[in-house]
């Protein structure tokens, strides 16, 4: 049985792309959040094993969402997938609890490898 993943990205195209990559690799996409606020809410309602998180989003950014999810669940497994790749923000995301940080554009292998390393 595949691991259950919550996808977070403000762009429909990126959510579709991630879903395709993940499903092709045996993961089950159990939710799609459009912003950090939805991600935090859905984390509770859907209880995924893994989360992919964008950073630059309206309503609540990814760093804030990571902090709130980690508060709810210190064992949460979140990997960041973002176009924004500046060192200071990468460090902040990792310090907030993200387990990996992937800069777009990405190769599908990189996402799968990151998820497997995190225990998916």
């Amino acid at each position, binding site marked *: 049985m595949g691991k259950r993943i919550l996808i977070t990205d403000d762009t*429909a*195209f*990126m959510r579709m792309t991630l879903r395709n990559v993940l499903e092709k690799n045996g993961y089950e996409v159990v939710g799609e959040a459009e912003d950090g606020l939805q991600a935090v809410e859905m984390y509770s309602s859907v209880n995924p094993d893994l989360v992919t998180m964008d950073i*630059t989003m309206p309503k609540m950014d990814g760093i804030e969402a990571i902090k709130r999810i980690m508060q709810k669940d210190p064992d949460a497994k979140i990997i960041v997938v973002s176009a924004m790749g*500046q*060192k*200071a923000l990468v460090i902040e995301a990792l310090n907030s609890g993200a387990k990996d940080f992937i800069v777009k554009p990405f190769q599908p292998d990189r996402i799968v490898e990151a998820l497997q390393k995190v225990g998916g």
Partner: protein
Amino acid sequence: MVKQQIDERKLDILKELANIGFGNAVTSLSQMLHEEKISMDVPSAELVYLQDVPELLGGAELPVAGVYIESHGGADLTILFVLSLDSSTNLILTLVPGLAGLNDQMGISVLIEVGNIMTNSYLNALSFMTGLLLIPSPPEIAVDMSGAIISTVIAEKCVLEDEVVLIKTTLKSMQKSIEGHILILPDNRALNTIFTLLGIR
């Protein structure tokens, strides 16, 4: 808006920074288009009147699609990726065949995300070179006449009669018939910050 104190030397430096920044953006685009070969013009950096910018994009009445982000934090910049409607359609169809181009919500989303990644690639490179933290906004898209887009994008920051520094390149994918421009509009304080950081008076 205060008239820009800028000379050839400073413009040359901006071109050099842009060369690296745009190079990163074009590399990202190429990767997204399955390693498609994309050529890029040598960047230009010049003082222009905002009202003349649409002419540089092919004419104020040319319908175009523009994806843009604003950066805040270390330096305020507007970064805009502009393409003709045909190029937009070709780009969308390269990534997701079968869509109805810009008439498709998913097609619009494709363009937003491509623009987002490219403009962020530029920003990431500039951040790396200057050490500045440049916080991007979520991307916006506008499909309209180029004159209208320029007015909308700039509206809050300055008036059309203003003279600004415009940094620009044109990119082309011959195979896929995709051609576009990337424009950077830094505000005065951003330029002062960057020049100060680089030790230039």
